Structure formats: C-alpha cells, structure tokens
C-alpha cells in the first residue's frame, strides 16, 4: 500500500547547517498495517511523514502509494489518498468555520469541488451519524464554530475529518502529545477504533512508548534519520518498554535520550 524506497532527505545541503534528516530509508506497508513509530527528538519522524504527504520532496528515492509513484505529485494532489492529523490541535481544522462546514471540507477531499452547497440535508445527517461515533455530543453542535471547541474536541474532530473518506494512508504525527492525559487516552482509543473499523493503513508517530507497544501490529524505532529497529507483529506482542530500551542500547551503544519520551 505504501512503499518508501531508499529515501534521502538533506536540509541545507552544502552549508554549515547541513542536516541529513533521512538517510536511505526503506519502508513497506501492507494494506491494513498499523505501524507505530518511536524515536528521539530530531530522529526524522516528522520529516518522514512530510515526505509521504508531499510537504517535502525527497532528494533521492521514491514514494509509492497504492502502486503509484507520487514523487511528482504536489501535496494537494496526493491529499485524496492521505489522511493526516497533526500534533497541534489547532492545525487540523478551520477555527472560524462551523463543525458541519469543517466536515463538509473533509467530505469533499476525494471528490471534485463544485458550486453545490457544501452542507445539505443529506450530508448533515451523515455528519451527525459520524459525529455520534465520537460520543462527545458534537452532533448536537453542528453550527458551533470549531474555534470554540476544546483542544481534545478539536483533535477528535480532526481525526474524524482525516479518516472521513477512508484514505489509503493515515499519518498521525504525535497527535496526542499536546493533550492532557485523559484527553490523550480518549484520542488514542478513538484512533484504535477508527483504524480498526476501516482497516486503514496507518503510520503513527508517538513519544509514548506504552502507546507504541499497545497499538498497531508493527513497531518501528528511528534514530538519526534511519530506521534502526523494525518489530513485526509476533515479536511486538511480547515486547516491553525495558526490552525496547535495552534493544536501543544494544544497537546504538548509548542510552535512549528519554527527555521527552514517556516511559510508562
């Protein structure tokens, strides 16, 4: 479903600020794979997401989605195939527009936009049904401006919007990191529910190791622009945080930089 072949990304090449953000990364995802990604700050996780979504263009290598090489497609042309939720709860929605208008924009993602009204009776019913699955009561606030929602509610809405049209690939970049623990748990549970329901091929970056172990069928660890560990489903089941940290030390010869990582 998703294939990254030999991806190289260098920032500020040839200057003193030169930074190899991704160093010949290879990654294959099968349809329905739910892969969690962990790694220290600056490991290249967000860069990887941006390469897939087309925000960044790789210096070498190819990105393939559903058998199609998308290197030359700009971000907005890849977007019908890719759902994204960002870390910042403000980033995934339009604050001055209403809940139903935001959903209408998500609904139109894989369709041609026309001069038809974005919200009509039939769609409003559909939006309401979808919102009910969040159990946040948002279905009763269709005409509320999204800017009035709490961070957790906005992130839940972002997640719903990102998955509304069941994209071929879902990219989640630390989408629970800016929330307090109870909200983060809510969004984590919703993520699991939605991904499983639609069998979405998903890449989820998290700094929460327990979350990375609990969710998904495969775990990847990144460091210095490389995938240093790739744990398949059978092994992931028995993996613990201690085991992960020990594995990192064995591979890199140093302790995992856990300044931000949540160990438990």
């Amino acid at each position: 479903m998703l294939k990254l072949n030999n991806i190289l990304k260098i920032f500020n090449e040839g200057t003193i600020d030169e930074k190899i953000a991704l160093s010949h990364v290879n990654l294959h995802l099968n349809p329905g794979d739910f892969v969690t990604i962990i790694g220290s700050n600056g490991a290249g996780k967000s860069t990887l997401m941006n390469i897939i979504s087309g925000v960044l263009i790789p210096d070498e290598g190819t990105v393939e989605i559903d058998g199609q090489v998308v290197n030359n497609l700009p971000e907005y042309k890849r977007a019908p195939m890719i759902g994204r939720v960002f870390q910042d709860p403000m980033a995934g929605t339009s604050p001055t527009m209403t809940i139903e208008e935001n959903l209408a924009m998500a609904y139109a993602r894989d369709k041609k936009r026309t001069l038809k009204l974005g919200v009509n009776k039939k769609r409003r019913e559909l939006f309401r049904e979808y919102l009910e699955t969040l159990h946040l009561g948002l279905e009763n606030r269709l005409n509320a401006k999204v800017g009035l929602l709490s961070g957790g509610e906005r992130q839940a809405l972002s997640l719903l919007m990102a998955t509304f049209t069941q994209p071929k690939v879902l990219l989640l970049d630390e989408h629970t990191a800016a929330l307090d623990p109870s909200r983060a748990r809510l969004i984590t549970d919703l993520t699991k529910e939605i991904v499983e329901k639609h069998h979405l091929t998903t890449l989820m970056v998290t700094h929460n190791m327990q979350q990375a172990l609990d969710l998904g069928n495969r775990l990847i660890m990144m460091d210095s622009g490389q995938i240093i560990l790739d744990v398949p489903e059978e092994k992931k089941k028995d993996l613990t945080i201690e085991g992960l940290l020990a594995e990192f030390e064995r591979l890199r010869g140093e302790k995992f930089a856990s300044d931000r990582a949540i160990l438990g």
Partner: protein
Amino acid sequence: MVHSLFGAFESGVIFAIMALGVYLTFRILNFPDLTVDGSFATGGAVAAVMIVNGFSPYVSTIAAFFAGLAVGAFTGILHTKGKINPLLAGILSMIALWSINLRIMGKANIGLLGHDTVISQIKSFFTSFPYPILFTMALLVFIIKLLVDWFLDTEIGLAMRATGDNPRMIRSFAVNTDNTIILGVALSNGLVAFSGALWSQSQGFADVSMGIGMIIIGLASVIIGEAVFGDRSIKRATLAVIGGAIIYRIVVAIALRVGLDAQDMKLMTALIVIFALIAPRLTASYREKKRRAERQKNASAGLEG
C-alpha cells in the same frame, strides 16, 4: 439635508458593492489587496469607453466586471506563482493599472453626459418613482450579497474560506490554495470594477484618478459595518459591510455639511480606519487596567481589614 442624505445612501449602496469585494479579500482570504484603487478605475474606464463607443450600458457594465476579474487574477498570480508578498503584489497591480487605465481611456477623463447609461435608463424608466436609483441599486446590492453568501457556502466557497483561515489544513484536504486565492482575488476585483462602472455612470464621467483611496474606503466600510452590525456569520457580515458603506457615505455627507473641505476627506477616512483598528485594543487594555486596579484595591483593602 434630506436630499443630500438620500444622495449619500445612493452612493453608499454603489460603494457597498466595492466594499463586498474588499470583504472577500480582506476578511475571507486574509489577503490585504491594494489592487482595488486601480481596478475601481478600470471598471469606470472600461464601462465609459464602451458606452461612448455605442455599446449597451448593461453590456459595458458587465464587461467592466470581467475586466476586474482579469486584473484581480493577475494580482493573485503575482502572489501565488510569483511568491510576491500580498501587499506588494497589490501595489504593483495598482501602479501598472494607472497606465493601463489611461491607455483604455486614451485620456484622463471621459464624460458620459448625453450618453445612455444604466443610471439614465433607470431614471427614465421609473419617472413617477421617487429615488429610483437608490431603490434599484439597493436591490442590486442585496442580490449581490445573496450571491456572495451562496458562493461562500458552496464546496468551492468553503475551500476559499478555509484558505484564509488555515491553508495548511485545507491543502491536506486536497485543495490547491493557489487556485482558491487567485479565484478569490479575481472575484473581489470583479465586484470592485463593477462598482466603479456604476459609479462613473452615476457621476456622469470616468476619471483615471477615480479609484484613489478606494481601498481605504472599502476597509472603512468593512470595519465600521462589522463594529456596528456584528460579524457572527457570513450572512451577517456581508449585510454589515453594506451597512458600513452606507454609514461611511452618510458620515462624509455630514462632514461636508458642517464645513469640512472635500479635499480633507481622505485624511478623515484614514483617521476613521486608524481609529477603528486601534479602538478595540484600547478599550481592551483599558478594561484590563481597570480590572487590575480593582483587584489591587480589593487586595490592599483585604490586608488592612
């Protein structure tokens, strides 16, 4: 006085079309577009030249709208494809349009007296009706407002609103924000040029300098309107913008009445906009200060007691 008040209403509704255009860029796209000073005159120029060359005034006025579309699209392209900052892109268009408008007109001023215009035709059609221009123009503005409201609720319109609000997000929903910006700036200047065409016909002439200061008048209308009538929804805000344009013309009429010089009008307009931009912040910081002083007083009273 009553007569000049009706005159102010009349010009207010014509200017309201321009102000709706400014609303589209300034508020919806979050794109401060200065093309307006040029495109208003482009509208007047195109309509006047066509009218004196024997075209129907209706065709001429609609042609002015399309000329405005093209001019606006040019500014939009400068910004999106040329990566030129919005303010500078608008200024460049505005300056270029000065020469282009002179080329269109062939001279600095074209008189329309003795020619059939939209305005003269309305007047001769409703002879027994008081203030026919005011009422037909008000109706026209209202129809345009409804069209703008409708457009902003369509799938494309929603994408345009999100472009001004959160471009990163709407790109992730497969919208080419370059296109929505170009379309929005084009539509905005189409309305501005349409307004310029009607204005030149109601004045009886088109002048190459008729657009100078128009952007500030448009901004004043948007800001005054929103402050007086509120902007809680699009439908409310577009109505408010029309109200703001009319209030602006009434204020000008009164100012002239009490003896202000016509040449001071631009200064006055600028002062109104400056005041309207600063006032909300001033009142907020005043309230904040008062709140703090109150707390301090209560706290020290608590200490003593």
